[in-house]
């Protein structure tokens, strides 16, 4: 990156330096990115809500803090929220007609933290409805397009955040990951994304899908930028009882930690049938770069990926059916017209408010938890979950970091899985096991298959985000894939 790089392609460090020495103001930055959203998002549909007035007010407040001599990693830097984080005064839709124009009466802890850090919210990004999907086609606000190829999906469910960052409509964005929803769109869009350890980022005010799996995280061009965003998001929150009390390391300072001698584990089962040959080749090349950083490659065992999928497709809907029971047409959100009686109000509000995929998962989850089936489905799935966690624990005694694919293929075509939604399950085969085990994982861009990006997944032991970010960062010091911007979205071209 040179000093002549356009504003939208600057790293957070460069943006911070520019704000610090007065080359540009937060207001100027904010206006610049708002203009990019205005001129480019029609092609992508990555934002559900853009908030220029609030953004400019937040930018002016940041400029006042900067003028008073304050400095901070995110002070004055624009960002976007996945539209699953509650924001008082700005609607939160979860990409569902069920919420539509609903405005949360409080802020998610993540939002409070980013506001306190002085980051400037530009708007809220599109997603699969209630985070249920791997393509961002299940949105009441329409599908999102992949900026690298608008006939392809951006991945999901944080597809709007992935597309917006990839097109440099915003320097960084939040996401959430229940079965791969940060990593897979990051991979498909050619950006960097980190799903931290379960409990690392507060879930308070993050609309629940599957509470034992959901985790918020960071999406940005580089690991260095993700480190700064994650540091601001992470930490204990007494309002989330599953929030970890473990101290948050200084992720940015840890980026340079020595990697020589670390063992990178390559799961042999993941480089077998079902993995696209080009994806495999790109990841193989990236592992060679990790070896060049002094890491030692070891082969590891991670069996039962299909068992993990089976467990996930009962556990996640079961928890969803419980979480989404709060959408009843009474306390908030959508209510059907002219209900005949209370039951009609419940049933029609829910069937008219929720999209087809959400209803399908609610039905599966309700079935899996219903009398006589609980042990056969939910109970068995929880046994499988422990088995998967044990496989990871065993593998991580042989290595320090696991490296493999994020998804079996590059981004697929819009509409490709519409005829058979069950084939879409396989898109998540390498990401879902990680959520079951609660471990931290990243997606790092490692090249292209034709026009479409390929992501490498890095997985670590619980609370080793600092090491994952360091591996990704040092890999990115040797490569340029994370700096690639799709031609249609480059400035001055």
């Amino acid at each position, binding site marked *: 990156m040179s000093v002549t790089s356009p504003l939208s392609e600057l790293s957070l460090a460069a943006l911070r330096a520019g704000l610090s020495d007065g080359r540009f103001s937060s207001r100027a930055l904010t206006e610049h990115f708002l203009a990019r959203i205005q001129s480019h998002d029609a092609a992508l549909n990555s934002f559900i809500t853009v908030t220029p007035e609030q953004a400019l007010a937040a930018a002016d407040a940041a400029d006042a803090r900067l003028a008073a001599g304050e400095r901070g990693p995110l002070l004055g830097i624009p960002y976007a929220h996945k539209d699953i984080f509650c924001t008082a005064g700005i609607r939160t839709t979860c990409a569902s007609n069920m919420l539509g124009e609903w405005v949360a*009466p409080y802020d998610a802890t993540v939002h409070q933290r980013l506001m306190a850090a002085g980051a400037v919210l530009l708007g809220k990004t599109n997603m699969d409805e209630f985070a249920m999907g791997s393509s961002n086609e299940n949105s009441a606000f329409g599908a999102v397009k992949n900026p690298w190829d608008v006939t392809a999906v951006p991945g999901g469910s944080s597809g709007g955040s992935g597309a917006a960052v990839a097109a440099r409509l915003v320097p960084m964005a939040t996401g959430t990951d229940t079965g791969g929803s940060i990593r897979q769109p990051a991979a498909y869009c050619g950006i960097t994304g980190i799903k931290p350890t379960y409990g690392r980022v507060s879930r308070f005010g993050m609309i629940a899908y599957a509470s034992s799996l959901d985790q918020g995280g960071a999406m940005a061009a580089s690991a260095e930028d993700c480190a700064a965003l994650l540091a601001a998001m992470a930490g204990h929150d007494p309002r989330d009882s599953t929030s970890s009390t473990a101290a948050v390391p200084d992720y940015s300072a840890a980026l340079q930690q020595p990697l020589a001698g670390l063992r990178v584990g390559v799961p042999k089962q993941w480089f077998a049938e079902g993995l696209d040959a080009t994806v495999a080749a790109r990841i193989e090349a990236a592992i060679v770069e990790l070896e060049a950083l002094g890491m030692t490659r070891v082969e590891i065992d991670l069996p039962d990926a*299909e068992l993990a999928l089976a467990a996930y497709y009962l556990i996640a809907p079961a928890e969803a059916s419980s979480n989404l029971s709060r959408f009843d047409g009474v306390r908030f959100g959508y209510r059907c017209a002219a209900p005949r009686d209370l039951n009609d109000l419940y049933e029609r509000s829910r069937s008219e408010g929720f999209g087809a995929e959400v209803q399908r998962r609610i039905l599966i989850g309700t079935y899996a938890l219903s009398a006589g089936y609980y042990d056969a489905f939910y*109970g068995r799935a929880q046994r499988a979950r422990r*088995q998967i966690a044990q496989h990871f624990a065993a593998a991580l005694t042989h290595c320090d970091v696991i490296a493999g694919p994020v998804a079996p293929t590059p981004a697929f075509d819009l509409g490709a899985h519409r005829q058979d939604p069950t084939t879409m399950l396989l898109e998540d085969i390498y990401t879902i096991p990680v959520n079951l085990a609660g471990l931290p994982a990243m997606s790092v861009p490692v090249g292209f298959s034709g026009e479409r990006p390929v992501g490498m997944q890095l997985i670590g032991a619980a609370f080793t985000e600092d090491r994952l970010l360091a591996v990704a960062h040092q890999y990115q010091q040797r490569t340029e894939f994370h700096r690639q911007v799709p031609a249609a979205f480059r400035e001055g071209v």
Partner: protein
Amino acid sequence: MAIDAAQLKHVARLAKVALNEPNIPRLVADMNAILAFAERLQDPALDGVAPMAHPWDQVQPLRVDQVTEPDGRDRLQAGAPAVSNGLFLVPKVIESE
């Protein structure tokens, strides 16, 4: 294990979701595809594995018994479809005649 249309209707009643009759065959097929995929969970090898509900087998922490949230009824009801005098309104449950 497989589900049929009658069971699906029962589940929909439990879930408070109104089914569109023409969608039922497709939903039954989709759910059976997932249930068939989930058959592998019946593997006897899992019999000896204890169920895991949470990544860290965490217990719920207790917090200090202190009032932290002030009354927020008006704020919390602002997004409700129908309220009156601080109450959520729903259709009449008991007929007056």
